[in-house]
């Protein structure tokens, strides 16, 4: 594993938190678009409309996710479980700076509570950046998380874009929607 520099200047072999001082390591890799991570260049990000010149999103955007049971994901996982037939998709507005995603229990009340046995109690977290966009981090979950079919490295923030599809657990899909007004 190559060393990553932490905010205190230590060379850390772990990429999530410094293996010397414990400081959280963010933005280790250069991300061209702070809004969504797509390659930048022009005045606006082509993927999400982030305004490079003004360094803020172009318009007030409402972020939400659609949570549903995805039969295709379920087929890929091939878990020996029963697919929840008839579960209605639900829309969750991202109106908090941080929303945790996890399997609901009487103890844990994640903002996005999932009734999926292969989801960890503390599975992933969505967090809002200064520009209003959201990023996701898998919190070292047991069965992992994918974004557009790519596995997320644990405890690493990955910026999200409109249309991203997050998969986790035995059947859960979380689709990202960015609705713009004005």
């Amino acid at each position: 594993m190559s060393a990553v520099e932490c905010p205190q200047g230590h060379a850390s072999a772990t990429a999530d938190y410094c293996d010397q001082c414990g400081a959280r390591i963010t933005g280790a890799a250069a991300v061209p678009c702070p809004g969504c991570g797509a390659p930048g260049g022009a005045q606006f990000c082509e993927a999400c409309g982030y305004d490079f010149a003004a360094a803020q999103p172009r318009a007030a955007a409402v972020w939400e996710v659609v949570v549903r049971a995805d039969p295709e994901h379920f087929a890929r996982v091939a878990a020996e479980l029963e697919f929840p037939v008839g579960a209605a998709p639900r829309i969750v507005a991202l109106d908090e700076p941080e929303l945790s995603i996890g399997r609901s229990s009487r103890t844990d009340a994640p903002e996005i509570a999932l009734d999926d046995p292969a989801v960890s109690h503390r599975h992933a977290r969505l967090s809002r950046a200064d520009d209003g966009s959201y990023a996701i981090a898998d919190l070292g979950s047991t069965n992992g998380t994918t974004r557009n079919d790519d596995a997320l490295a644990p405890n690493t923030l990955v910026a999200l874009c409109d249309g991203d599809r997050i998969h986790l657990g035995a059947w859960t899909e979380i689709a990202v929607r960015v609705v713009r007004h004005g």
Partner: protein
Amino acid sequence: MSRFTAETYQNEFLPVGAEEVNAVVTVTADGVAGPVRGTGAAAEIVIIDTSGSMGMPGAKLRAAMHATGVAIDNLRDGVAFGVIAGTHRARAIYPHRGLVAASAETRASAKAAVSELKPGGGTAIGKWLALANSTFAAHEEAICHAILLTDGEDRDETPRELARTLEACKGRFQCDCRGIGTDWLVADLREVASALLGTVDIIPEPDALAADFRAMIEAAMSKETGNVALRLWTPQGAAVAFVRQVSPVIEDLTARAADVAAQTADYPTGAWGREARDYHIAIRVPARAIGDEMLAGRVSLVVDGQVSGQSLIRAIWTDDERLSTQINREVAHYTGQAELAEAIQEGLEARKAGDGDTATLKLGRAVQLAADGGNEATLRLLRNVVDVDDPVTGTVRLRHDVDVAEEMALDTRSTKTVRVSGRRP
């Protein structure tokens, strides 16, 4: 070989200036699918006390011999096993040297040897363990486990001798200890069981011994992975306040840390079957500025130098009291469970010392905590020692007619915890 997963339960938000991070980490091996017969190599030694007192009454030794037979019958074929008879010295009664593989023939021979046992002599538990240790030495690759049964005090050696033997045995094999009758000392057996990562319990009636031996052998045979260590990394400037197994029983592991690097230590947890255990970990870290996030601990499991399963203990400093004042349910529950065990042990000690006021106070607190934590079994045992006026306030009166066996049962089982209700299936 087991596959380990770890999950952290904590409130990572700390108020400004706070320096202690508390978390409960649940470690699960292979998804907890119920008991299975293990597949790894195993070695088993049954150590039975044959001192003179085991013949008074004769039912004790007879029950011990019968229970040993039941244990032998429940060994998996091929498991290396042996039987040691213990007095003021230790004697390998079957086989006479080393261990043999369990088969119909060797089981029958072992039971025949056991049936010849006669009571006579003293008690030196350290000598029995030393013989078991040297016998296990030829089976280092196996998961080594012993059952130790005694009925009396460890009179024929000094506490120092026993401590030295325990030091030599640590990490070499695990040992579940049972006391039969009421003439043994809970503290003696707890010391042995704790050092050798085993359980301790009282068997007041000889009749119950066989079922208990069967259960212990079944548990030993279900172990799949030996010598598992819990590894804890902490940041520079941090100090581990404690690492405590809190479920299924309380066992403080803090003093057993073996440093593997400057900021990393391993804590021994023994052999695992398909099971889940909870650990309460407290780490002191230097306070940071509001909004700072740091990793206070990284927990993983280590088997033969291979790391598997990982969970993070975080700290985020905030001035938002709504976040920082929330006490995590698991942490609160197990803090109460640890206090419960302590209150019982201190209460019983005060009672024996004739300090009725302290005993009433401590046992009252224990009743309160047991009622609050949902420890039904412990509460039942407490009612044998105190009359409960009000479990909510912990108002109790000491009973005058206390059965010694019931008092000892309360003492030995004081460290047995329950999990947070409704958390897991």
